[in-house]
């Protein structure tokens, strides 16, 4: 398996890295909280992919799947809570602009 496995790992790793770059770029650059949330989602997608890849390459797919399922469940809870917070934020500030969330500094 050696070299071929190694190659496969690096290929998957590149895509994982690209998804991470997309996600972080989205978080850092956008001004809209919903888009930040989309960025976070992309990061989670990347991680889920990476976990499954890990299981796939090492033949430990059962563990990887069970972990991935748990991660997905947690992810959805976090997103729902985040959505709740964002809606509350919108009610409070009448905007989703991230620049409104800079009152606490220093």
């Amino acid at each position: 398996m050696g070299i071929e496995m190694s190659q496969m790992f690096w290929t998957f790793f590149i895509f994982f890295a690209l998804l991470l770059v997309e996600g972080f770029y989205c978080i850092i650059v956008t001004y809209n909280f919903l888009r930040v949330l989309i960025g976070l989602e992309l990061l989670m997608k990347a991680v889920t992919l990476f976990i499954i890849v890990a299981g796939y390459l090492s033949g430990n797919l059962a563990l990887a799947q069970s972990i991935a399922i748990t991660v997905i469940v947690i992810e959805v809870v976090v997103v729902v809570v985040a959505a709740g917070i964002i809606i509350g934020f919108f009610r409070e500030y009448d905007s989703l602009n991230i620049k409104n969330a800079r009152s606490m500094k220093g």
Partner: protein
Amino acid sequence: MNYLLIFVPFIALVLVNLLPKKLRPISSFLVLLLILAAQSIFAALAPFGLIRAVGAVRMEHLFGFHLLIDNLSLLLLLSAGIVGFSALMVAWHSIKDEDDRFNFTNLLFILLIGMNGISMLRDLFSLYVFIEAIAVSTFIMILLYKAREAYEGALKYLILSVVASVMMLSSIALFIMFCGGTSFEVIKLSLVSSGALARIAIALFICGLFIKGGLVPFHGWLADAYTSAPAPVSVVLAGVVTKASGIFTLIRLLTAVIGFSPATKDLLLIIGAISIVIGALAALGQKDIKRMLAYSSISQMGYILVALGCGTRLGLIAAAFHFLNHAIFKSQLFANAAAVEEQTGSRDLGSLGGLAQKMPVTGITSAIASLSTAGIPPLSGFWSKLLIIIALWVSGNYFYAVIAVLASLLTLAYFLTLQREAFFGQVSVKVSSVTEASAGMLIPAVLLSAMTVGLGLVFPFVIKYFVR
């Protein structure tokens, strides 16, 4: 016993929610209070053999997973019990609305289960799940009153928390790939023969924990979340929750799995030293009591980190002792801040003054806790700092020892600022009609400061607790 620690609160949580609506708040409060007190007593007495962990043998077949209690677990169990108890007492008086109070107790139940789980787990991924459970309930707790500021704090915490999750999960994936599993034994076994990527995995996981624990430069969310959280929430948050998910897990990881390589040590020392200095300097400039305490929290976490960075047994003991001390005095300071805010309606140091005359108990207890934090002898904080500095010195990290000493002067400086602006001097106009806080708010403060003094005075026995 091990299983009881997570199942009793869980079952209690479910049962309390099944009660008729009228009974719920009071019963959940009492039940949780009882559980927390029992847990504290158990954790405090267990190391001396006064309480046996009974019935731990046969249960494994029933549940199919391992929960092991060692002395490190007891440390977290004890801190969680004490801090949870104080937070609950504060909550009972400062949260006025019954529904809010009930929600708070429910979430505190979840936090407690999460922390108890963390203290006993032996699997990296389960650890992550419990940390996430804690994090999610924390986001919600911060928004308990749905205050305007709180949305901001909660969102910042959420975003950085997801970033931390990404780091930890990537690391877990790497562990699956290069170690073949996520349980501590598996990782430890195969870590010896693994290459650079496994080391990256370690670094990533540690960085995730740094975010959770709020170490510089991963600390952006911390001050905002602490400041915007309701009073009892910030007590429990600052006292134990973020420490449990960040620092405690780190200690567990270092001792049980990855060990101390030169690179890890350097990482811990550097991040720790930066946190100590930046946290203390940032605290110095604050005008808001809670924000100051939040930054001080960062600085204190730095102390724990440098102690860990020694990589010696003494360093580990020092870190554990400081962990407990920090849980005690920081939750007490936040309880004091809650009392001040409750009575004066303000946390702004500029508008306060002379409170020691109006609120003598709060004044004295907060002075004790502040001085303990600053490492003024013979309060308990002094002993842990002494151990940290000795540990640093003995392990040859002279530079960091000097930083630790100098920064404790900085700590003293900002706490003196706090004391001077809030408690000394002329009674300012704003607080001229202020009275002492109600007994419920004072009980935790007095209790915790008595602990600070007591731990300092019986230090020899306390340290024996950790040496075991």
